[in-house]
């Protein structure tokens, strides 16, 4: 290949990288600083509201991975089945959110938290009380705009970076 002015292209390119030296960094020092995730975050672990759940099983049927298992009482108590076991094997969960969309009684929510790695395999299987919401396991606003409004706004990279032509 022949070039008329060899080197001009490279110098132009270097001017761009040089200008980058004077731009504000947009990276975050992750474990110390954290960005806020989306208000609709489909984080790890499902959040389940035991008081609203009617054990209808719609969520279990909607799950493409088949990770939700529900055991109910054999006989209804006060015209309602009692949930004896509600088990989610998060090891197989792909966090697609279809169960949350399917639940007709607003009793299943996506989790807002992340960093949920576990040391033992049995720890990723969540049963009954382990699924309840708590300060450590907040629920996200996925499919529930009212809940989403209450969460802090997502940090957007677009707000941090400006281009100067």
């Amino acid at each position, binding site marked *: 290949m022949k070039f008329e002015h*060899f080197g001009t292209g490279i110098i132009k390119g270097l001017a761009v990288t040089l200008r980058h030296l004077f731009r504000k960094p947009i990276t975050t020092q992750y474990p110390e600083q954290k960005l806020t995730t989306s208000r*609709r*975050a489909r984080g790890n672990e499902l959040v389940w509201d035991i008081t609203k759940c009617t054990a209808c099983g719609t969520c279990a049927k909607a799950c493409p991975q088949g990770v939700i298992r529900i055991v109910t009482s054999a006989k209804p108590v006060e015209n309602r089945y009692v949930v004896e076991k509600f088990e989610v094997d998060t090891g197989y969960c792909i966090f697609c959110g*279809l169960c949350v*969309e399917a639940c007709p009684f607003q009793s299943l929510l996506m989790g807002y938290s992340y960093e949920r790695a576990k040391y033992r395999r049995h720890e990723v299987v969540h049963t009954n009380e382990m699924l309840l919401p708590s300060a450590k396991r907040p629920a996200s606003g996925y499919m529930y705009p009212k809940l989403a409004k209450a969460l802090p706004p997502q940090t*957007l*990279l*677009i707000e941090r*970076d400006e281009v100067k032509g």
Partner: protein
Amino acid sequence: MALKTESFALNIGPLHPSTHGVFRMRAVLDGEVIANMEPVFGYLHRGIEKLAEERTYTGVIPLTDRLDYLASMSNNLAYVLAVEKLAEISAPERATYLRVILAELQRIASHLIAVGAFVNDCGAFFTPFLYMFREREKILDLFEMLSGQRLLYNYMRIGGFNQDIPDEFLPALQKFVSQMPGFIDEYDRLLAENEILLARTKGVGILPQDLAVNISASGPVLRASGVKWDIRKADPYCGYDRFEFDIPTGTAGDCYDRYRVRIEEMRQSLRIIEQAMKQLPSGAVKSTVPYLVRPPAGEAYAHIEAPKGELGFYLVSDNSIAPYRCHIRAPSLINLTALRDMTVGWKVADLIVIFGSIDITMGEVDR
């Protein structure tokens, strides 16, 4: 006395940093020159087409995310269009416009990786790559705002979307659309005239026009060879005929043209997004669709212009809640079949450049 020489078989991959995933190539070398090249598919086979047969129509959508994981929105779109065709459902206007916006944003995000990884393969070690990742990150932010995840969106539903866009989405998108042309100009200043890039890509890995058509290549690979073929124009879906945009084409069909076509396509995508944002109607984002879609027995094929080429879903229904057959026409796989013809006669170092210029995702090649 003549030296006795023999050809040498070199295995590249499946676990090799420049194979963009896990792809194996068996190259037969004559010295440093490639005498023969045999792509070996199947290392990442997960049986997605078979898995789809035992899932409900909605349950397949998260699977399609995992095909071309750099362009999940486009996969979602192609699949839901196929189901909508099969079940004769139509999405509301607002959803159609939003689909166009998201598909074009996804095209920009995918091309940013394609170009970034390609120049990385050419030896521009990670500087342009990270510049482009920075802009891609902004798109991922927007997608995260909509769907809750950064890579596997699972956002589109049969008949629209699962939830409407939040209020803060359109201002953020507007900001992105107004900033992005500046960044694309910056990439051009950084790379377009760079002598090393030109020397490594101009005239390298030429895919002749007739061969490109014969192997039914599509997307930027086909357009770089000078064929003006874009499904958005040739068979408009989602109302693409309402927007004004050009189809950038190359002339030589070499690696440099493929790179140029992608950069130009990003500009055109921004044009489409701008128009779609202006015309975005209000209203519902999902039409009333039964909880379990049960299409009448029959078959349907829907194709879209995904970032990498023509992505098609062929669905057969037997009037049950799960597809009887789901076949995926993956652009990466078909574009990859040209690899042998493009690489024979070039050196090993060029093989990596040529391979990078096709822009493949292994999730889609092996399914």
